[in-house]
């Protein structure tokens, strides 16, 4: 399976470093129950992702430059994890352009956030062992995420998938002494679980299908090679279905599997209807929000859809679903973001919305656009979160923007990088968000396979306007105008130390330039530099994911981009008027639109809806039926306690005979037993 040119033993080092970091530090913490000095914690924790980054970068260069006759990828087969008759699962890592981009993002952004966390967690005294514990989790997360993106088969991917879920849970509830945080962690975990369940079902279906086709495998490359043989399979239906007169459905198996995978992705990547956990996940420390809930973990769903693109190419129905869910989520979350007051909540809904964009792109089969946006979004959203963290630190853990304003002069560096982040996300040319969002819109515009593609394009365009509006609202409310903070707090606000600002500057630079460097559209490249393949990322990725070739004229390209910029500009202007020039208009407008405003402020009452329709009946049924009747009466009463009582009764009463302590009794029992044994043997009774 592994050709000589593809074997690469260095890949295992990439997840190994963070694992070692987590293990060494974590085991110490577990047994010694005492923290290391902070400098050692920092050394161990931060060197791990940086070392991974260095290895990943060297292998990335290797991958980009080497010549491969049969596909551009490296494989590192560490050992056979599960070997059963027909089923073979290797613990092996795949490093192809897709995972290479992901690994670079994860280790790069991850390293920066590790460094930032040194400063952010430094003043945290809520838990005396919190500092080291935090970094243990962070390293563990990095390890899991790397397993996820490097996994060569569905099972390794799933290990990482569950691992990041666990770390997310641990880190959301990091300050677990406050009840609210623990509940938020739990919510994230439970909602994710729904998705994970579907994901598992998807794995089972797919494996079963390949097994039927005579290729029992869960290996990505092998699945890709044989997927064509499965296109005709339909969902097997038990024969009694037809006999009792039910219509026999002829669902394509691949579509069903694809939908199952996508439900998994919805859970992890916070799409409708499973997005509800992400805003609450903001209860965790801000670096966590940046790393896990903006840059990396939540994009795992997008990555997975792209990784499984070979399947979705044969499941157009599933693909259309993805596009629609993505488009609707993007719009839906953006509307909520307009009214939120907590700056991290705004960013959270913005993340949901941007993830929706990525799924929209994936659903339109422009996977490279999805990954492109994933990468740029990782940069600018991490930047925005970290800058917001800096603001929160400066404001002494105040997150309500009603109590901010006027921070521009107090925190000049933070202000500049935040502004860069805002400009990047709203798609101001030539920042990175402009290029990636443009490519998504282009993909939607040119798509003919998804029903209603043009409508989705329009919706995405409108959402771009919404994005622009709420991001600038956020910016103006934090940094401009007279302050609404108390004088005492405001007088203490100051710029953060270099360890916090440094990563911000690096991320800001990436947010500005990464887009143009990675994905300069071919049409401009031809025009400006007569370079027909200037969109390097897409050409790089095209060796892994199928990319539909856009044949588009320069005029069209410019027109579409201009339209997007125009929409963003209009929305930005509106925001500027409302929140900068004529702030006195806002209360009146709010009052006039109070019905809409209340609905948006309460996030469409989705949480309440879920609570009333799912959670409450579930709890009531669990309590009344499962707990009181099934558990207490049947399982505990008749089952466990009953049997235990019975057994104990027998044993207690038999104890006089069973353990007398007298050797002569023992010999006697032995004799009786021996005679019975011999009698059985001889007589065969």
């Amino acid at each position, binding site marked *: 399976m592994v050709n000589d040119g593809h074997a690469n033993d260095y890949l295992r080092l990439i997840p190994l470093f963070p694992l070692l970091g987590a293990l060494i530090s974590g085991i110490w913490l*577990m*047994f010694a*129950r005492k923290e290391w000095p902070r400098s050692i914690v920092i050394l161990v924790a931060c060197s791990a992702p940086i070392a991974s980054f260095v290895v990943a970068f060297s292998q990335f260069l290797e991958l980009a430059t080497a010549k491969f006759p049969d596909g551009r990828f490296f494989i590192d087969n560490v*050992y*056979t994890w599960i*070997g059963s008759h027909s089923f073979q699962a290797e613990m092996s890592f795949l490093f192809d352009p897709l995972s290479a981009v992901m690994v670079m993002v994860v280790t790069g952004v991850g390293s920066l956030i590790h460094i930032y966390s040194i400063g952010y967690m430094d003043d945290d005294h809520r838990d005396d062992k919190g500092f080291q514990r935090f970094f243990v989790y962070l390293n563990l997360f990095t390890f899991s995420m790397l397993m996820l993106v490097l996994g060569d088969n569905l099972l390794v991917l799933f290990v990482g998938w569950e691992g990041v879920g666990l770390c997310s849970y641990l880190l959301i509830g990091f300050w677990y002494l406050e009840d609210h945080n623990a509940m938020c962690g739990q919510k994230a975990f439970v909602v994710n679980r729904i998705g994970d369940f579907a994901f598992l079902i998807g794995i089972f279906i797919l494996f079963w299908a390949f097994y039927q086709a005579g290729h029992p495998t869960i290996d990505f490359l092998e699945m890709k090679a044989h997927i064509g043989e499965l296109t005709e399979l339909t969902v097997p239906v038990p024969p009694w279905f037809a006999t009792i007169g039910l219509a026999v459905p002829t669902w394509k198996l691949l579509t069903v599997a694809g939908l199952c995978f996508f439900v998994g992705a919805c859970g992890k990547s916070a799409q409708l209807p499973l997005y509800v956990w992400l805003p609450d996940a903001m209860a965790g420390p801000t670096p966590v929000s940046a790393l896990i809930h903006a840059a990396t973990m939540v994009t795992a769903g997008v990555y997975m859809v792209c990784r499984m693109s070979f399947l979705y190419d044969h499941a157009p129905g599933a693909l259309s679903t993805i596009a629609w869910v993505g488009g609707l989520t993007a719009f839906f979350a953006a509307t909520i973001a307009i009214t939120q007051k907590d700056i991290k909540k705004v960013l959270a809904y913005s993340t949901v919305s941007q993830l929706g964009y990525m799924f929209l792109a994936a659903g339109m089969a422009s996977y490279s656009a999805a990954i492109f946006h994933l990468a740029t979004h990782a940069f600018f959203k991490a930047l925005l979160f970290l800058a917001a963290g800096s603001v929160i630190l400066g404001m002494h853990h105040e997150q309500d923007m009603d109590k901010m304003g006027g921070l521009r002069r107090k925190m000049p560096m933070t202000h500049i990088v935040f502004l860069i982040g805002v400009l990047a996300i709203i798609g101001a040319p030539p920042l990175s968000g402009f290029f990636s969002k443009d490519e998504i819109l282009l993909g939607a515009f040119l798509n003919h396979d998804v029903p209603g593609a043009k409508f989705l394009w329009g919706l995405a365009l409108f959402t771009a306007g919404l994005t622009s509006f709420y991001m600038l609202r956020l910016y103006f409310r934090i940094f401009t105008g007279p302050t609404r903070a108390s004088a005492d707090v405001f007088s203490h606000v100051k710029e953060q130390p270099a360890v916090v600002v440094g990563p911000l500057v690096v991320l800001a630079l990436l947010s500005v330039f990464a887009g143009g460097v990675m994905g300069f559209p071919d049409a401009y490249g031809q025009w400006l530099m007569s370079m027909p393949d200037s969109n390097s990322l897409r050409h790089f990725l095209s060796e892994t994911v199928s990319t539909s070739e856009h044949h588009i004229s320069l005029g069209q390209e410019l027109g579409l981009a201009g339209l997007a910029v125009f929409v963003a500009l209009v929305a930005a202007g509106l925001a500027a008027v409302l929140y900068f020039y004529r702030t006195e208009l806002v209360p009146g407008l709010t009052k006039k639109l109070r019905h809409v405003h209340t609905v948006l402020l309460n996030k469409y009452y989705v949480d309440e809806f879920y609570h009333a329709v799912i959670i409450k009946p579930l709890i009531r049924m669990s309590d009344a039926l499962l707990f009181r009747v099934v558990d207490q009466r049947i399982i505990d009463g008749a089952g466990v306690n009953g*049997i*235990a009582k019975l*057994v*104990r009764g*027998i*044993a*207690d009463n038999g*104890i006089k005979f*069973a*353990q007398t*302590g007298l*050797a002569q*009794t*023992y*010999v006697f*029992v*032995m004799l*009786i*037993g*021996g005679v*019975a*044994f*011999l009698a*059985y*043997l*001889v*007589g*065969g009774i």
Partner: protein
Amino acid sequence: METSVLEFTAPELHFGTISPLLTVALGAVLLPIIEAYLSRRKSFLSRPVTRVWIGFMLSFISTIFLAIALMLTLGKLSVPQAEVAFNAAHPMIAMDGTAHFLIATILLSAIMTILVSGRYLADVGANYGEYYALVLASVLGMMLLAASTNMIMLFVSLELMSIPIYALAGFRRLSVRSNESAMKYFIIGSFASGLMLYGMALLYGATGSVGLAEIGTKFDPESVLHLLGAGLLLIGLTFKIAAVPFHQWAPDVYEGAPTTVSGFMATAVKVAAFGALFRVLSLALQPGIESLYGALWVIAALSMTVGNVMAMIQRNVKRMLAYSSIAHAGYLLIGLIVPGSGGYSAIMFYLLVYTFMTIGAFTVISVLAKDHEDKDQIDDLAGLSVLRPFLAFVMAVCMFSLAGIPPFAGFMAKFQLFKAAIQASTELGDSSLLWLAIIGVLNSAVSLYYYLRIPVVMYMRDPEREADPDSMAGFERLVLFVCAAAVFVLGIFPHDVFVIFWDVDVIAVVSEAARSMLP
């Protein structure tokens, strides 16, 4: 003078084959002398001689002997075929893959026992140097027992194993319990030995030979004499593994004996006795004897059930572990009933795993001993996770593994065993094995009740006493770590165990060994 009447050819001595045996024998002979010499000295190499120092020196020396033997054995593990030890025509012992695997397991158990004994013995005031010589002598007996293919060798090695163990059980000679334990074990053990010897006499009388293989060729399942002989022989061996109804000594003896000795008894004796059972069943008794396997079926089912039920009501951890060892003997007997090599290889893997988890559990209890007293009540473990987190962790791992919860090795071992039974039952269309496997699974479920009580007490109850000063010796830490690690590694990578420089597929080793043992 009359002419020579005795026909005799000197057997060839293959020293390479028996080198592990010779190493241990040499150690067993030299250790008493060394001990006697050292204890007469006031100072040695200009340092004062104390009891503790002597204990340390002796444990060091005996560990070296055992370690050399272990290295020699491990080197042979990859060769499943029997090496000739003395005389190819009339083998006294068969040094084949099975023997090597079992010997390695016995040696591991002995090494771990010796490493954790020094501090414990000093702590309970029984720091006498004879301990190590006795352990080594008993190990020699076990090694021979696991390999013996001749009834005389079988009996001699059984006694060589047992007599030092009787003495070890009573090693705390100032403790009434320990004396009681030794006395009971000795009396009941002698009785069992007597029965076994009787069986051997009958078999010899019936067949005219003492070699197990020769008996196998002449064995007549129709003859009452043959069956009685075989049955009595089996009683003697099932006594050693503490199977119901020959089990009642076990709780009293394990409870009274020094804790480290209990661990040694529970593991190494069982390993050796199973070795002997392998030989007797595969060589001397034809597999077709219906009633024999029926009788073993009943014993297995009874052992599992009685062991688990009685373990539930124990308040003393050592007693509980004794009943648990009875139950495990029941599980292990399933493998003997399965025809073919699958059951034997499952047993061998199980024995290795069982050694680690049981020694781990007993070691935790021995570490807790304080002020000349064992802290072996379940209540003594309350809040251990706070007082001694490492101990609590190892204990919990061992308990989970004993209960057979994945991913620990205990699960993998049980899985192999039940799998073998179920496979054989489907292949033969014989539902009795399936039923035995079902009984085994049900019993595992029952056993959860008492195994999990320990972690519950350790982790969920508040400590009732002050934290002891952590007096654990480095060796104890090492052994506990090795046990816990082995339980993890054997559970997760049974096919891929790395032992420093050496990568071994344990499952493949045992199945090769089992296959080579069967004709």
